[in-house]
């Protein structure tokens, strides 16, 4: 089974359940691929030995009535993993080894999976190209010197390059969906509160949400089922009973109403994206769904709002990195204040510092009302827009990103153009609702492009069903030349 690593998670699970393959074989095949990660740079930490040990242990006494039996999974290095270095892509946590396990990863391990490694990401998840990581750029398997998107860039890259059968990321403004779109993979940002935030290095607490990144929609349903669930340790976790997303997955979307928001048609958007969007509508109609034009009038204010709310929360969330309890401490300075200033100046990278300063400013005395309160008001308006729309439609179809993957360094020195990458993904985080990106075509460079479906609160099943139906008809195939192995 030479190309087992190219198979979907669902297929691998089924092979293990049928005892046609052992967990150790699966694990070793992925480890073999990981050995060629050097150019991609998608891993920060390899857990090869740990994974093989876990696989052997599984094979000795296979427990098959779980969702992820014997499956090795590499995760974004933002999830705290007990006994395994957790860096958040930052020098600040370069030496941090948590003695606790995040709820989400624990949920995966409880379903039979085990840790394969920790994946590169933008520093503290702040970035859209994985260029802000202290551990270096990640490249997109699609083409050399191309970014994989961010902040879950390492996750997207490792998944697309078959270095892990599935992965998990976090999405604060598009950090799952945009890299999924750039690498031709599937990414879901669940409803805020569906997946516990406990044990995930926080970026912006009211926006952060963990979610699955997979090769297929079916895999995505399976992973969400494993991840989601109420956590009493997270005050923002929603108390509801577990759902069987994978079992209930269906192609039947007949009669569903899909909204097309006119505000998502932006200037300078490549023609291919427009074509892709039109194709999406066509497929939905063929599947028996009804297309309805809608308006989300405050869409253009989502990014400015996001760049107030997210940095404000981040400036406070990142105050704990002060060199006292864990992580990096500068040895410059003779008193406490100097120690703080040097530690934080040397430990954080430029983009993180930039956002902390923005956040500090928008919360500071005399500016709070003009920026922070104003943003929370506009956030309410953006949420109202979605609430209104969902009175008329079941889901909304948009492109995932305004462009395909770009070259490394292309936008590094222009923060605004970098930020604009998240223009279609950010509104969803502001409203706390779920959205999924699936690969749907390519641009003229043959780089993948994604379509995004947005749903209402806790309507993940419907979103998955729509994505499932569309995925089948699009039948997107990615042929990578595996340049990084050469």
């Amino acid at each position: 089974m030479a190309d087992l690593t190219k198979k979907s998670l669902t297929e691998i699970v089924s092979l293990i359940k049928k005892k046609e393959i052992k967990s150790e074989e699966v694990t070793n095949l992925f480890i073999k691929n990981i050995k060629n990660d050097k150019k991609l740079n998608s891993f920060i930490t390899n857990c090869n030995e740990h994974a093989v040990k876990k696989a052997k242990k599984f094979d000795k006494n296979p427990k098959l009535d779980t969702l992820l039996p014997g499956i090795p999974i590499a995760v974004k290095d933002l999830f705290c993993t007990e006994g395994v270095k957790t860096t958040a892509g930052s020098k600040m946590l370069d030496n941090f080894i948590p003695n606790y396990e995040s709820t989400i990863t624990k949920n995966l391990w409880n379903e039979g999976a085990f840790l394969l490694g920790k994946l590169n990401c933008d520093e503290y998840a702040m970035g859209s190209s994985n260029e802000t990581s202290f551990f270096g750029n990640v490249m997109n398997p699609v083409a050399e010197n191309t970014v994989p998107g961010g902040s879950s860039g390492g996750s997207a890259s490792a998944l697309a390059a078959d270095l892990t059968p599935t992965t998990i990321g976090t999405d604060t403004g598009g950090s799952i969906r945009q890299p999924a779109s750039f690498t031709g993979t599937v990414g879901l940002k669940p409803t805020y509160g569906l997946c516990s935030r406990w044990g995930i290095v926080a970026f912006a607490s009211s926006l952060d949400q963990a979610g699955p990144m997979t090769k297929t929609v079916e895999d995505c349903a399976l992973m969400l089922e494993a991840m989601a669930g109420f956590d009493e340790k997270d005050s923002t976790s929603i108390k509801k009973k577990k759902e069987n997303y994978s079992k209930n997955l269906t192609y039947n979307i007949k009669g569903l109403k899909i909204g097309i928001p006119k505000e998502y048609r932006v200037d300078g958007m490549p023609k291919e994206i427009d074509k892709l969007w039109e194709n999406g509508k066509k497929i939905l109609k063929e599947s028996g769904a009804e297309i309805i034009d809608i308006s989300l009038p405050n869409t253009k204010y989502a990014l400015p709002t996001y760049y107030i709310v997210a940095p404000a929360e981040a400036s406070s969330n990142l105050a704990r990195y002060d060199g006292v309890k864990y992580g990096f401490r500068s040895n410059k300075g003779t008193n406490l204040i100097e120690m703080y200033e040097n530690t934080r100046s040397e430990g954080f990278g430029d983009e993180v510092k930039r956002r902390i300063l923005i956040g500090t400013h928008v919360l500071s005395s005399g500016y709070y009302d003009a920026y922070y309160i104003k943003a929370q008001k506009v956030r309410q308006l953006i949420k109202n827009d979605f609430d209104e729309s969902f009175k008329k439609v079941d889901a909304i179809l948009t492109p995932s990103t305004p462009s395909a993957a770009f070259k490394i360094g292309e936008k590094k020195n222009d923060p605004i153009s970098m930020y604009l990458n998240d223009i279609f993904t950010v509104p969803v985080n502001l409203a706390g609702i779920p959205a999924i990106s699936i690969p749907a075509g390519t641009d003229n460079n043959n780089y993948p492009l994604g379509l995004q479906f947005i749903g209402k609160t806790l309507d993940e099943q419907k979103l998955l069903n729509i994505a499932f139906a569309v995925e089948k008809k699009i039948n997107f195939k990615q042929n990578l030349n595996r340049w990084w192995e050469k």
Partner: protein
Amino acid sequence: MSIDKDKIKHVSKLARISVDEKKIEHLTKDLSSIFKFIEQLNELNTDKVEPLSSILNEPLRSRKDEINDGKIRDKILENSPKKNEEFFVVPKVIE
């Protein structure tokens, strides 16, 4: 509301991040353009809008008053860059 060097110095003091004099010019430029972008919001009249107070429509959950944590000093101190057997150790605080 423009961003100048003094503002950046003030804010970095609040955020406890020392900023390199050499980088401050560039940072001022970046932040100015970001704030110009952010200030698009001023086009919107929001006088009658209540700020969003929570993205979830849930009540705040609470826990019982039970002692079920603590007594893990070694774990707490384990990752500290400077500690002794009992305490975190930091450079002298100068008031």
